[in-house]
């Protein structure tokens, strides 16, 4: 019985460690860029207030998306401009060999094409979600760290910054 108790404890520590390390790795080794956002604000019952971040690169308007399936993995190549602001350059089903790109999943495969990148939630202090939503309506950016394999994590939000 005691061995099994230690097995359970090890599983817990390994899972927690993996979650922390993989996130920390993205934050420390990834390339930092700013993505323009437009949020909406729901509430997660389990984890308090958060804002849903909808990026400019989440909607890709002029795209013939018929050959893409819902939930299919896609890679969005980004061009980084002044002040590290990144914007959409191209979309492909295969991983680009060079340049900065972010991995996403097709959410809606009809026009306009919608893609999610796993960086759409941002947790905030309780009862501050609404206020943040108002502040995010203009000139708001998310500082995002992107790894070489395309996985990304939000570092922080940059508010009221006109570039």
């Amino acid at each position, binding site marked *: 019985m005691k061995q099994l108790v230690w097995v359970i404890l090890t599983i817990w520590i390994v899972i927690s460690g993996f979650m*922390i390390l993989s996130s920390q790795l993205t934050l420390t080794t990834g390339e930092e860029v700013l993505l323009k956002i437009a949020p909406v604000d729901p509430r997660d019952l*389990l984890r308090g207030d958060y804002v849903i971040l909808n990026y400019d690169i989440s909607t890709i308007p002029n795209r013939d998306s018929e050959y893409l399936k819902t939930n299919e993995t896609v890679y969005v190549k980004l061009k980084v401009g002044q002040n590290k602001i990144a914007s959409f350059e191209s979309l492909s089903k295969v991983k680009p060999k060079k340049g900065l790109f972010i991995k996403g999943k097709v959410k809606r495969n009809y026009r306009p094409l919608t893609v999610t990148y796993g960086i759409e939630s941002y947790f905030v202090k309780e009862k501050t979600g609404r206020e943040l939503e108002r502040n995010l309506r203009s000139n708001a950016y998310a500082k995002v760290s992107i790894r070489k394999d395309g996985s990304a994590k939000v570092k922080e939000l940059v508010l009221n910054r006109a570039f």
Partner: protein
Amino acid sequence: MEKRIKQWLEKGLISASQAEALTNDLEQEAERLRKKRSQIALYTIGAILVGLGVITFIAANDWILKIFLMLGDIFKIILLLALTCGIFYGGYILTYEKKNFPKLGKAFIVLSSIMIGATYALIGQIYHFNANNSALMFVWLISVYPMAFIFRDRAINVLSIILFIIGVVFWYMENCGSENDIFFFVPFLIGLFLYCLGNVPILKKNYNEFSLSYKICGLVPIFIMFLILSYMKELSFNGPALLISLVVFIILLAVFNLINYSLESDREDKLFKLETGFIYTILLLLILFIVYPFNEIALKLTANIFCISMIASAFSFGYKFENVRLINLGTAFLVTYLLVRYFEYGWAYLNKSIFFILGGVCLIALGYHLEKKKRDMLKGAQEKSEGGEN
């Protein structure tokens, strides 16, 4: 038992002092059992409340930020993880090593199974993982499910079932969200999977109490879906691509049920045959739903037949096997079914005050009848077991 003591006294089998001693012993035993039950209930409710407290504490980010303002993010996680592991290990020591507070120890183990989920949620919160994701639920499930078997704990088993159901629903929403009409099948498939799991022979033999939990938790979504079906005007599918994966799931469940049937040593058991037949009938019905468009009358008829059969079976087998959980399930199904039908037919045709009074009186009468029947059954079972002990 007290009646029997009186009879023995009247027959001269025991003396007055022996009768008094026996009655006192019985009262003391009953008191001890009452205390034990209330202790278990208090510990379990306490553990669940503390667990919920930890989750809401984490949900209310500002509390965490205020208290741990000076601490780094990783330190917060390590602190909560260490606390969770400590509670778990403490529970183990109290229950299995020192054995001085076994009930409290079990409650600590249940508490740690909730707190580990809160720890994962905290990690998700700190690193802004996408909310409402199935991965969190499945990781939590993997972390606590073995505990249910190691400690034979029904509460952790039920927690695992809840996590499984929520995880599957989230997974569906993440992966097949746009195919809304397929969602109709998800509760059926979850329910049937849980029922099949409850019928796994090795589980039935060694963890019978878990087996019943799977079956009961599996029957609930199936019953609710039949109730919903009885209100639908039509049911037809236009052959989306996901229907193929749906058929694959149905075939997999059929195979699962077949494996259970072939591995079962007591295959001639009437109940087991009935259960196997029930699973295949619903699987067949799901295929029919995909292939043929059902109109309102066909849907109403099918749904009501299944609802009534499920209620009748729960009561029939509940009384036959003297199983209170099955009887309670049958009662819950019956009351829900009657309320739904009563609102459906009574609301439009009855005066509103008569509608509520009549409904209330009928429910009270039904409740009284079922309670009386359950009490008689429990009394009979108790006397039987006492007779066996004597």
